């Protein structure tokens, strides 16, 4: 009698399908991802119903930290404008900054969070020192000494003839006086239009805006 031989079943699982799925997802995430820019100051923005995406070009960003300290920076790619801003501020305030210090301002990730009196020594720091620099005193914005006005003026001069996207990014816990100081600095430079960076939020049902959204009315202000 012939021996009945049970064929040994292979435990090999075909991984091809799984690989396909994995790499499909991978390519999706690679293509859609936008890296979080390393933030020097952690800011938790409030939410709003606004659906307008923020502009990415020619950004002049004023950040208000949770402790009410104010910071100023210009987007990385606008090196020419950055150069003009620092030249303008240097001239106006007679800071006598060296070329190396000016170059430090143009350097990537250069966020300004110090008064003019400390600007020179702050710009002397190397890139590594800046990234570990935690104790920013912030730009003074009080009514007696609003240094942000000068920075905004510099930005206005530098971006002359171009559209400048003025943005204010404030932390939830920042108090009104800092924001008031920022508004004052902008007003003094006749910069009456600006954008507040917020995180998206749904429109509550039953409200007027919700109704007009339902009716398909495009709101120009949004």
């Amino acid at each position, binding site marked *: 009698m012939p021996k009945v031989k049970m064929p040994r079943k*292979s*435990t090999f699982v075909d*991984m091809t399908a799984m690989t396909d799925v994995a790499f499909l997802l*991978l390519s999706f995430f690679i293509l859609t991802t936008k890296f979080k820019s390393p933030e020097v100051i952690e800011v938790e923005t409030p939410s*709003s119903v606004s659906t307008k*995406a923020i502009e990415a070009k020619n950004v002049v960003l004023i950040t208000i930290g949770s402790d009410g300290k104010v910071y100023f920076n210009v987007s990385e790619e606008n090196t020419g404008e950055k150069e003009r801003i620092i030249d303008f501020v240097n001239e106006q305030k007679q800071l006598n900054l060296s070329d190396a210090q000016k170059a430090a301002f143009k350097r990537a990730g250069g966020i300004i969070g110090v008064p003019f009196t400390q600007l020179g020594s702050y710009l002397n720091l190397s890139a590594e020192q800046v990234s570990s620099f935690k104790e920013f005193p912030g730009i003074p914005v009080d009514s007696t000494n609003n240094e942000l006005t000068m920075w905004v003026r510099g930005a206005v001069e530098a971006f002359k003839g171009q559209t400048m996207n003025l943005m204010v990014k404030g932390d*939830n816990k920042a108090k*009104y006086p800092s924001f008031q100081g920022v508004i004052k600095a902008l007003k003094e430079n006749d910069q009456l239009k600006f954008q507040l960076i917020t995180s998206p939020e749904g429109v509550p049902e039953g409200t007027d805006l919700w109704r*007009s959204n339902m009716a398909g009315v495009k709101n120009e202000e949004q």
Partner: protein
Amino acid sequence: MAELDTSSSGGKKGPGVKKGKKLSTRVDLTPMVDLGFLLITFFIFTTTMSQPTAMKLFLPKDTEKQEEQNKVKESGALSIMLANDGKIFYYEGTLAEDGSNFQVTNFNDIRSVIVNKKRSTNPEDFVVVIKPTPDATYKNIVDILDEMSINEVKRYALVEIFPQELELIKVAGGLSTN
């Protein structure tokens, strides 16, 4: 790894016969899957899904000239003052001498106050005046501005609070002691 050796070694061809072992064309893809998922996890964690949005704010120009100033019909005005801990003080029209129309509410109920005022006022005259106290947080301000767009309030202004109002709020416990 996920494969057991199933080739029954030997036998059939007899001893001495050199057997050319048939190599499988199947490649073990497990490490590739591992790598794929590792990268997926990485990208999932680093990606920012909700893009920040921008809320536009237009400020009125400060002007000394009387004729350039926007006149607000007093009856159509709703003044909203933002105090500490999300407290909101408000009054309609002008503040009464004795402060009798000075009321307190919070962020949950302010919407109905705005809507009621909006419904009961001539749209031409309706204006909301927002006055943050020094104790108001940035979140409060953005929330109330957001409330303006939610309720489609066309005219609103962010202005300085009057000392008299600040005093009333202080009495009502809407300010921190400092």
